[in-house]
């Protein structure tokens, strides 16, 4: 017994979880700061949190080409985890930048918001670096619970309440499924470590046909697909995205989604790699379903946040195509796509943050008529982000989609690529519609309430730079994604 304890302690490698440890420590410290701050003064808390994120970023970078395993093999902070951690950190940073003035405008200047974002990000980093189902679950729970609170943050607004509650109920259920799936898998294989599961399957191929195993695997996937917002587990997305505070919507669409993809990739590629053929077929169906539902329902949306919610469902579908491909290009394509997606989505939402009125009743197609003329810079910026979402060169969205479909075509899934591209074509219509409203219609409002504050402007500039740089000179990041992939 004592030897076991000795071994367990020796296997602890704090380096493996250093970034999340640092972030949690900062989070708790900042929580204390917010307790002792004056009510309503959140700006210094925001900047402190941003600082925390930057520091964590540097810590995370030490993990590049320097894989750190720890906790008896249940955490592995490798290139893959580093890449995804940086994506989540960037998402969190951009979110915090656009939040402060927004919270003050909407009347909820509550400083606990910022530590919650930090905790969410820490959970995301655990998800990305977990090689054991329990670690992944742990990260998922930390991520989700913080997000439930953040989604329902505007407690006097009914839409925010609905968002928080809906997310909580559906999320709790899906986490329950996930946990039950983990339990079933444990029952069959005797371990929750991903490599252990894979080893068990290789040693006992018949176990893969075991009903318990299949049920466990499927339940596990359900949990992840819910987080990723893939069809048919996407129903929560539009309402939650529409109701939550806009920066949180932005964050939800990028950071946690990336973390969920990271976990899904590790589980599928490392844990269930014996079942590649079956999983590929399953993901094929899910990808097509997700893309199609996301794109076709977005066509009828008039509310901008809701439209972007459905668009993010369809983008999850494109990313799933990379999983179907199950080759090195497909995997690094998902990594690259998540980064690109973070920049373009957060940028688009940042513009929405700026042009919203208090209470955000005007974020509809009619509400932005003529925006291009009244606020030309915002118009151009939003246009570029929309072009990136459409997948038009020379923006990053094009390179991202190209790379994903390249992976699919290389693996022989030509029809999947064609379907993906046709879905891309469908999406052109609803993104173009926003541009039509901005430029081809005469202005109804004068947008005088739009005040471009510096932090949000910084976040837009960073997103824009990301979208354009990755569109024109993607080579270096594509190389990094290759190194970080499987």
């Amino acid at each position, binding site marked *: 017994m004592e030897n076991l304890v000795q071994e367990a302690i020796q296997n602890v490698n704090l380096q493996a979880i250093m970034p999340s440890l640092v972030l949690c420590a900062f989070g708790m410290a900042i929580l204390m700061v917010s307790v002792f701050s004056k009510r309503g003064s959140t700006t210094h808390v925001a900047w402190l949190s941003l600082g925390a994120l930057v520091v964590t970023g540097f810590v995370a970078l030490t993990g590049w080409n320097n894989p750190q395993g720890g906790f008896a093999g249940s955490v592995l902070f490798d290139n893959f985890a580093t890449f995804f951690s940086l994506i989540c950190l960037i998402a969190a940073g951009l979110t915090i930048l656009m939040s402060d003035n927004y919270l003050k405008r909407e009347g909820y200047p509550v400083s606990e918001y910022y530590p919650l974002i930090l905790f969410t990000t820490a959970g995301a980093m655990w998800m990305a670096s977990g090689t054991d189902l329990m670690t992944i679950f742990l990260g998922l729970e930390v991520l989700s619970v913080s997000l439930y609170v953040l989604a329902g943050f505007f407690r006097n607004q009914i839409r925010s309440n609905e968002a928080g509650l809906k997310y909580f109920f559906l999320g709790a259920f899906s986490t329950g499924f996930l946990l039950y799936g983990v339990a079933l898998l444990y029952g069959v294989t005797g371990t929750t470590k991903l490599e252990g599961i894979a080893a068990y399957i290789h040693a006992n191929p018949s176990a893969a046909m075991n009903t318990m195993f299949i049920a466990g695997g499927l339940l596990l996937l359900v949990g992840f697909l819910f987080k990723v917002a893939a069809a048919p587990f996407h129903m929560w997305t539009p309402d939650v995205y529409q109701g939550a505070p806009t920066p949180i919507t932005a964050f939800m669409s990028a950071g946690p989604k990336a973390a969920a993809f990271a976990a899904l990739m590790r589980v599928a590629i490392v844990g269930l790699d014996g079942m590649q053929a079956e999983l590929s077929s399953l993901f094929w169906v899910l990808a097509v379903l997700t893309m199609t539902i996301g794109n076709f329902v977005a066509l009828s949306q008039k509310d901008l946040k809701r439209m972007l919610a459905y668009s993010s469902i369809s983008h999850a579908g494109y990313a799933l195509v990379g999983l179907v491909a199950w080759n090195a290009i497909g995997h690094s394509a998902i990594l690259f796509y998540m980064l690109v997606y973070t920049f373009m989505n957060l940028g688009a939402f940042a513009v929405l943050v700026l042009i919203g009125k208090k209470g955000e009743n005007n974020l509809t197609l009619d509400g932005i008529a003529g925006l291009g003329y009244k606020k030309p810079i915002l118009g151009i910026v939003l246009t570029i982000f929309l072009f990136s979402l459409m997948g038009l060169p020379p923006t990053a969205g094009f390179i991202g989609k190209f790379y994903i479909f390249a992976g699919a075509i290389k693996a022989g899934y030509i029809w999947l690529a*064609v379907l993906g591209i046709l879905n891309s074509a469908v999406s052109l*219509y609803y993104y173009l519609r926003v541009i039509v409203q901005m*430029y081809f219609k005469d202005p109804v409002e004068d947008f005088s309430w739009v005040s471009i504050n510096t932090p949000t402007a910084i976040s837009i500039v960073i997103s824009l730079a990301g979208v354009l740089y990755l569109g024109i000179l*993607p080579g270096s990041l*594509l190389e990094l994604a290759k190194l970080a992939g499987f």
Partner: protein
Amino acid sequence: MADYLLSIMTFFPLLGILVLLFLPRDNGGLLKAVTLVVSLITFAISLPLAFDPVFLTSGEMHYREFYEWINIGNYFQMNYNLGVDGISLWLVMLTTFITPIAILSTWNAVDKNIKGFMAMLLLLETGMLGAFISLDLFLFYIFWELMLIPMYFLIGIWGGKNRIYAAVKFFIYTAVGSLLMLVAIIFIFYYAVQSGADMNGFGIQEFYKLDLPHSAQFWLFLAFGFSFAIKVPMFPLHTWLPDAHTEAPTAGSVILAAVLLKMGTYGYVRFAMPLFPEVLPTFIPYLAFLAVFGIIYGSLVAMMQEDIKKLVAYSSVAHLGFVMLGIFALNMQGFAGGMIQMINHGISTGALFLIVGFIYERRHTRLITEFGGLATKMPIFATFFMIVTFSSIGLPGTNGFVGEFLALMGAFQSSLRWYAVFATTGVILAAVYMLWVYQRVMFGKVTNPKNENLKDLSLREIIIMLPLLLFVFWIGICPNTFLAKMNPAMEKMLVQMGATPVVAVEIPPAPEGYFGETGAAEGHGDEHGAEKTEHSD
């Protein structure tokens, strides 16, 4: 300087946009002047290309520029690969030539948001030039898609009443086609990677050497061909054109007709046909049928139009049918006819849209019934209109004749003989609709009192038209200046397409004493013998 000529030429308009950004928004005259200067400088930069004698002898790509852009080994490679040969030479010149003319035409036509308009025109120029000189399929695709954005805005913001519908239709129609082409492009690359070929990014010269299996070539040609057929436009994928042309502002229509439509035909010549030569015999009968159908259908529909701009739009469908027919003939004559007709169409249809623009600026209507008897009020305009009409019809002496004649002759001598027979009726139909519209608009009495006080062409408008008319006659009377630089490149391309580059009709030298003292009877017999033909396939 020659090393970077193409890059400087392509990106100079972007520099112009940068300059425009710092100019005040209200000073429309200054904005237009700066844009004009930028486009004239771009034209000047491109002039050395036109005078370079290397194209007379060499069918290779010249003015090459090559930089590695993205290289992730087998995953993905793309290079900044530029070059121009005889085939793209005159298309590049046409682009740089027409853009200043289009800008000049906006002087009084555009009054709102001038900065945006000028920026869009310059961006469009960059996109078009880049597409013509790209030797890397991925780079080509980027420029190809890039062109859609400014055209979409040009139609949607500064267009006519139904502009939103036309702009969205244009964008989605063309983008869907290009997206399918994207799948094909990716497929070719990974096929090449798999077959161990020595890849150079998506370089088309390497792709030409690939030996793709027949079934793959079939689907790939379908994807490429579909995308380019939308752009040409070939029947039945032409329905975006009348809306786009009618609703676009004059400058937009001029550039759309003069250059953007050439993208489709250029795509066939540069990519679809030489990349997949094995499946050409399968597809060409159908495509030639669509081309001829387009000629006749376009002409018939044009005849019945009440809106003169829509009439010209449908005439474009008809004219480009001749281009495609000539190219599908797969012999030197047809190919030359098709290529020259591309340039001709740019000049004559561009001029036609300018003419329509002149009338529209004066009367703000394009309905033919609103006009009548304008010749007496606007004699200079009437003359210019007449010359352009002749060019569009293909009257000998004008550029249209050279193109149509060569194309039809080439088609006649190839396996497409019966297609050529039917296509020739298109020449008559063109005469019908053009002359009829001219008569209804220009001749007769002035029936509408609003037409009583129309001013004739101003100096600026004359200056716009004169270069176009110059080329109408230059190409018509002395086409060899242009054909000579295309010949070696065309020969090379025909070989790549799997055809033997023979001239369809060769006239052997006259036998001994033909021009001598022998009688007329003998000379007569020799005449028939001299017209031996060589079949090209």
